[in-house]
């Protein structure tokens, strides 16, 4: 069965994933909108940066974060200077890492959804004298709803599945940085296969259920590809 430490790890994981997903939607929405609309020559460059965590091994990100967010790193000196202290081994650090790591899973579905809306609904809204902000909230967001749904679910589940980055900057602190994936790894290393099985099973069931919902729910609604 699940021990208290395992339940704590599960709870912490969902806490990190929830906060990170909210932050990713907040930052990712304007970024995806800009990327979908802009003709700026830097678009390709920004797209490449956003997509980097998709192809980089998490250890690369973890290593850079550990070195640069530490007390002798550039970001670390900055965060210390503004009074935040250093980020490795903290819950905040984990959230920052998760946001960087899962961002493409939020930005890319949103960008695709925004692009597929096209010019016409926006022009129609403009002829009805809707302000750009009004257009965004009453036209774009409802039309891009499947994109938001996909972005939220993928961003959340990808953060739940995060391992390499946390292993490198977490420090395995109960209730702060000991997330489920790390806890499973520790169980396996300590040869506690029974405990590992319970937690791994929970995660498998959770991930499958979420993806099942994603694909069945999205099937009933106009999805991004059909709009194109």
């Amino acid at each position, binding site marked *: 069965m699940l021990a208290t430490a395992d339940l704590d790890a599960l709870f912490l994981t969902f806490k990190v994933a929830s906060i990170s997903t909210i932050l990713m939607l907040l930052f990712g929405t304007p970024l995806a909108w800009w990327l979908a609309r802009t003709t700026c020559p830097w678009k390709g460059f920004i797209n490449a940066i956003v997509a980097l965590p998709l192809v980089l091994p998490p250890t690369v990100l973890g290593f850079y974060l*550990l*070195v640069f*967010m*530490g*007390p*002798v*790193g550039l970001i670390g000196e900055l965060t210390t200077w503004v009074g935040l*202290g*250093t980020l*490795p*081994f903290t819950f905040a650090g984990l959230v920052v890492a998760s946001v960087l790591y899962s961002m493409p899973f939020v930005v890319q579905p949103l960008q695709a959804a925004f692009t597929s809306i096209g010019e016409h609904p926006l022009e129609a809204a403009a002829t009805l004298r809707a302000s750009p902000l009004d257009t965004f909230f009453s036209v774009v967001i409802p039309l891009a709803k499947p994109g938001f749904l996909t972005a939220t679910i993928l961003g959340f589940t990808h953060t739940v599945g995060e391992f390499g980055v946390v*292993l*490198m900057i977490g*420090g*395995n*602190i109960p209730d702060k940085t000991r997330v489920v994936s790390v806890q499973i*790894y*520790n169980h*396996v*290393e*300590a*040869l506690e296969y029974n405990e590992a099985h319970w937690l791994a099973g929970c995660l498998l069931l959770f991930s499958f259920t979420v993806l099942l919902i994603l694909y069945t729910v999205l099937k009933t609604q106009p999805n991004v590809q059909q709009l194109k």
Partner: protein
Amino acid sequence: MLLTSFQRTIIISALLLFGQSSWSATVLVAVAANFSKPMTDIAAEFEKVTGHSAKLSFGSSGKFVAQMENGGPFEVFLSADEKGPEKLEQADLTVPNTRFVYALGKLVLWSSKPGYVDDQGKILTTGGYKHLALADPKLAPYGAAAVEVLKKMKLFDKLSPLFVQGENIAQTYQFISTANAELGFVALSQVIENGKIANGSGWIIPDNQYAPIRQGAVLMKKGAENPAAPALINYLKSAPALAIIKKYGYDLAN
């Protein structure tokens, strides 16, 4: 006598095969993270002397045990403790009577800042730091030894909220060397050079503060047919290898 090209091919292939299997074979070795530096040196010497080569994988002993229990390919195992090799022996995965203690590990309290850790370890009581790094005591014997030291000093309850735990001793070292943790417990072999602590500052913890870290090695059944595997086990007991082990601050088992 003239040989046909067919006969020549046969003889050359036979020579090559023979050479492969007994003169210069390759052994796959699982090495506990704390022993990575000395083992790299030992493997280089081993290759020079015997002509065999050793491929080294570094990691935590617990992970290696789990891998070998599930068919992992390692032929020789150098653990950070005696428990791992014993467990594999009970599972009948090792060659009988090949298990031995190759080194006694030394624990050091270390910081990458020069002059930070005094040679009595008083800094532990004084405080003034936010993070104290150690290897996960559940997984790593050096972590368990660190906990033992802190309990003996009656500091465990006070300092455990500051713990940051590395998955193995190499990661623990990484936390401290990047200054993310001000100080922490690592293996002496990681920070020693020419008999003294090379960088930063440290306190080599006296032997009577923790139970000896007896590091066991064993020949796996996977390596029984590979001449390089027993050769490496024997080489580990040779004078040049023992000298290297001592150079990295380990004590030798009797």
